[in-house]
């Protein structure tokens, strides 16, 4: 894992001191609320429906036990004993007091963490594949790239006052677990024909009210040119991206309106200029970054005895993935207990996860964009013990990738922008399908819920997406079908008229019934059936009255 240098350490400490001063200047009136707002956002502090919310970065989702314990400490000391893991590998605390925030930031700095640039119109926390360094299909670990970008984008003098937020994601595998096509810039580590390392660069993806998939702007970018190239993209965006309308200010709109070919031309010419100014990256600094992500010292190979306990077997089937070392495994800890708030963990649960990482799993944890926690390097001989301890802590729900492994944004329960509730909808769906055997029969299914058009719940890329809107003061839920956030990415299509709050869960049940009726064999997934048959059978299930009317006509 990356360890802070003296430079990083001094940097975050200074940022905390600076923010302390900004809070004081706000309180004494030398900063207006308008002026203070972007400054606090750049330090992760939002104003929500009921209180402030502090969003802390877990860069590329990687942390160790000590850092997880510090979250537990922060939750107990300054919040209400729990935290919420988000779809961008952050953790949010929902109830901090403004005057406590500088101390919370100081406590983060104590464990080499920060909340910088987790909100505001700047380059946000860089995300990466949560299986990095452990996946069987990995070409190269994306985290050195993500860390390099984290450093480069931190307090960047040119790009801290952009027209809108800017998100970068990196993957190093064939199978895209980082949803890179839904990011302002998506990077995929590749090799050219001679085996030289580099990147495929995508630009202009994003969800929100106008969902778009990123387009390839450069098929192969040599590794050493990453920073001047990304800087060129940002510069083009900063100078000619729209600023007249907040909803048209993301780079996806610029790419859409200008065309990818013209954007490519502009970026390439700016890139050539940048190369003259700085050619690549200080190799010493980058070598140190790369070295810090070396694999842990794996245990010697041994024979694995198969699990006998049924509960353990079922948990291994769903929550445990293969590791690049056959006697190791990747464990996903579900934060989607039946009827719980997706992504929430109590301070006790955090401490238990930290202890498991420290005792059994090379002291490493990951946060996934699907709001779960991962132990990336687990010797298989410890699986039974880990399962037992997770079960005692209420963390052994065996539902990864299944119908109750739902992504939901905070919605009306916390978010000031929400037009509908999303957490209670997730909870009701999960209770409806509480039976894990039934969930396993249904198979892989991604349900994603957003509480407003901003789409923080990624509903556009859910196999079933649910968007909560406000229709004349009443919650109304729109369904989209067929979305996909992986390497076969697609944006879901709207199914038809929305449903009331008490109709949405039955509607989801009907969709799943229709899928079960139409699948050709047990292994054909929901998404495969949708792609084979199109929306018709699903629409018929959603709107039986319309179906009956048209049959009668």
């Amino acid at each position, binding site marked *: 894992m990356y360890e802070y240098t003296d*430079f990083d350490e001094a*940097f975050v400490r200074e940022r905390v001191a600076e923010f302390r001063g900004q809070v004081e200047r706000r309180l004494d*009136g030398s900063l207006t609320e308008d002026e203070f707002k972007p400054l606090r956002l750049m330090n992760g502090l939002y104003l929500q429906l009921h209180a402030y919310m502090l969003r802390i970065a877990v860069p590329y989702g990687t942390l160790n036990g000590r850092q997880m314990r510090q979250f537990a400490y922060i939750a107990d000391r300054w919040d209400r004993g729990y935290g919420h893991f988000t779809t961008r590998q952050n953790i949010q605390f929902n109830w901090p007091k403004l005057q406590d925030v500088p101390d919370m930031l100081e406590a983060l700095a104590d464990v080499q963490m920060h909340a910088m640039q987790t909100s505001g119109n700047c380059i946000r926390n860089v995300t990466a594949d949560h299986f990095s360094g452990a996946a069987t299909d990995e070409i190269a670990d994306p985290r050195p790239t993500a860390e390099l970008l984290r450093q480069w984008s931190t307090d*960047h003098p040119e790009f*801290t006052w952009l027209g809108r937020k800017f998100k970068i994601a990196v993957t190093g595998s064939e199978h895209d677990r980082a949803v890179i096509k839904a990011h302002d810039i998506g990077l995929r580590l590749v090799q050219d024909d001679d085996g030289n390392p580099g990147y495929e660069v995508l630009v202009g993806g994003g969800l929100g009210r106008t969902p778009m998939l990123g387009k390839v702007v450069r098929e192969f970018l040599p590794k050493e040119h990453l920073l001047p190239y990304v800087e060129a993209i940002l*510069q083009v965006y900063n*100078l000619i991206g729209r600023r007249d309308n907040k909803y048209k200010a993301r780079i996806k709109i610029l790419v859409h309106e200008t065309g990818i070919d013209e954007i490519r031309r502009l970026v390439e010419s700016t890139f050539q200029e940048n190369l003259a100014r700085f050619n690549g990256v200080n190799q010493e600094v980058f070598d140190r970054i790369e070295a810090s992500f070396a694999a842990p010292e794996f245990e010697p190979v041994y024979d694995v005895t198969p699990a006998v306990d049924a509960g353990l077997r079922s948990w291994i089937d769903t929550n445990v993935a293969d590791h690049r070392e056959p006697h190791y495994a990747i464990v996903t800890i579900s934060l989607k207990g039946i009827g719980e708030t997706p992504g929430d963990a109590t301070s006790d649960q955090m401490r238990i996860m930290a202890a498991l990482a420290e005792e059994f799993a090379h002291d490493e944890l990951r946060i996934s964009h699907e709001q779960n926690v991962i132990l990336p390097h687990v010797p298989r001989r410890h699986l039974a013990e880990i399962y037992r301890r997770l079960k005692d802590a209420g963390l052994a729900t065996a539902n990864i990738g299944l119908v109750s492994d739902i992504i939901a944004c905070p919605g009306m329960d916390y978010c000031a922008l929400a037009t509908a509730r999303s957490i209670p909808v997730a909870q009701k769906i999960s209770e409806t399908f509480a039976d894990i055997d039934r969930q396993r029969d249904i198979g892989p299914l991604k349900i994603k819920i957003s509480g407003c058009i901003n789409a923080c719940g990624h509903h556009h890329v859910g196999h079933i997406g649910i968007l909560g809107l406000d229709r004349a003061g009443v919650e109304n839920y729109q369904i989209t079908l067929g979305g996909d956030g992986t390497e076969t990415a697609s944006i879901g299509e709207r199914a038809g008229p929305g449903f009331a709050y008490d109709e949405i869960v039955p509607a989801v049940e009907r969709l799943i019934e229709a899928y079960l009726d139409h699948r050709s064999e047990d292994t054909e997934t929901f998404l495969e059936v949708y792609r084979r048959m199109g929306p018709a059978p699903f629409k018929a299930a959603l709107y039986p009255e319309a179906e009956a009317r048209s049959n009668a006509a």
Partner: protein
Amino acid sequence: MAVIITEDGIAADDWADKTVYPFDVFWSGQELPEEALAVEFPNDRKPEDLVPWLDRIEMIRVEFPSFADGRGFSLARRLRTLGYKGRLRAAGPVVSDQHRAAVRVGFDEIELPESVAARQPAEHWVIRKQGSYQQRLAS
């Protein structure tokens, strides 16, 4: 009267009595002075358009319509990349927290409306000692 901020503190505007020409002056056929040529730079224009004159210009005044509109930071960077060596001024209601970034992209000074300056005394403009990741990473 506007207030000028530099790394040395607050100063009077030594350009107050001199002309700052509009951006389009080079295409207007107007007679231009041999010395003390200064130009307005609205933040939706292209730096390349000034290239033929960059050697002659003594000051470019880049407009910041609001502190939240950060186009000026990229404009300054580009003007410097294109070889401009003269004085570069950021003009508008920026906040003191932006002083560090302004200097790092190549601005020499900030021209602040009086009303904004009144709320932000000189000590707020002292640039805090903060390392630069960009400098550290550039080879």
